[in-house]
């Protein structure tokens, strides 16, 4: 597996969509290639950080209460 293949397959590797043989080749390459190792780590870090982006956009509590009251009044 070449470095370009690491970039092309990293998403499927992390999602668990690569077959067993490709996983072995992928892992073998990143163990031997520091650049690709760093690339995969950074790619994983982006995903990990992104999970926390939900902390940025939070609906204000007062608005949430008002919307809830409106919803309940209409559905019940």
């Amino acid at each position, binding site marked *: 597996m070449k470095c370009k293949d690491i970039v092309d397959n990293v998403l499927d590797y992390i999602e668990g969509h690569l077959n067993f043989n490709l996983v072995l080749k992928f892992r073998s390459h990143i163990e031997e290639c520091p650049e690709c190792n760093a690339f995969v*780590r950074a790619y994983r870090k982006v995903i990990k950080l992104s999970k*926390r982006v939900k902390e940025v956009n939070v609906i204000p509590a007062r608005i949430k209460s008002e919307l809830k009251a409106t919803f309940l009044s209409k559905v019940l």
Partner: protein
Amino acid sequence: MNNFNLSDHKLSEDSVLPSKLLSMSDEDIAHDCIKNKKETSCKVLFDRFVDKIYRLAMRITKNPNDAQEVVQDSFLKIVEKYDTFRGESKFSTWVYSIASNNSFNLLRNNKNNMRTMSIDNYTPNSDNGSLSEIIDSGDWTSNPDLITNSQETLEIIDKAINELPEKNRMIFHLKDVEGLSIKEISKIMNASIPSVKTTLHRTRLYLRNILKDYLDESGEIEDEM
């Protein structure tokens, strides 16, 4: 079978809800609310989805007032169109579709749309297939700024995503922020799985470069966050 995680569902402030209610599936809660008119179930239904809908609406419209309007309209539409939900997809997928449609409808009417940049032609590899152009940063994953300025880092990512076209924003948000599967996203967006994957991958590579530019390079490889 739905993957239900109790810890994902916040309790409303105004009631202590029985554990049986909290452990009900989304479909059952919706039915109990909409068809049986059970107030406690309606509260749970609202609490389960309000934050998800708001976040998606913010991602698409980039406007808090519009996002609030989407929340209101989406819950009303969930009730109005409930009989059209056939159970062919997860209930949450259906809710996201409603929220997405409402958000895009509002966006089209929004006269203050920010310009976005396309990364459709973003190709990180150099012509000879090497990674030199995307690996040249070394390893920034253990940079201490990621920890001490974590909120700022998240805001950097949030801002960077908001500069991209709606398709990129939405796929990234649904997958990497909200944790939906690629299959679910392809249903919500009516896009092929390969298309969703390609867009997601390009967006992640783009974000990686944004963070590379933002952070200083560092040495040791660690996983702090």
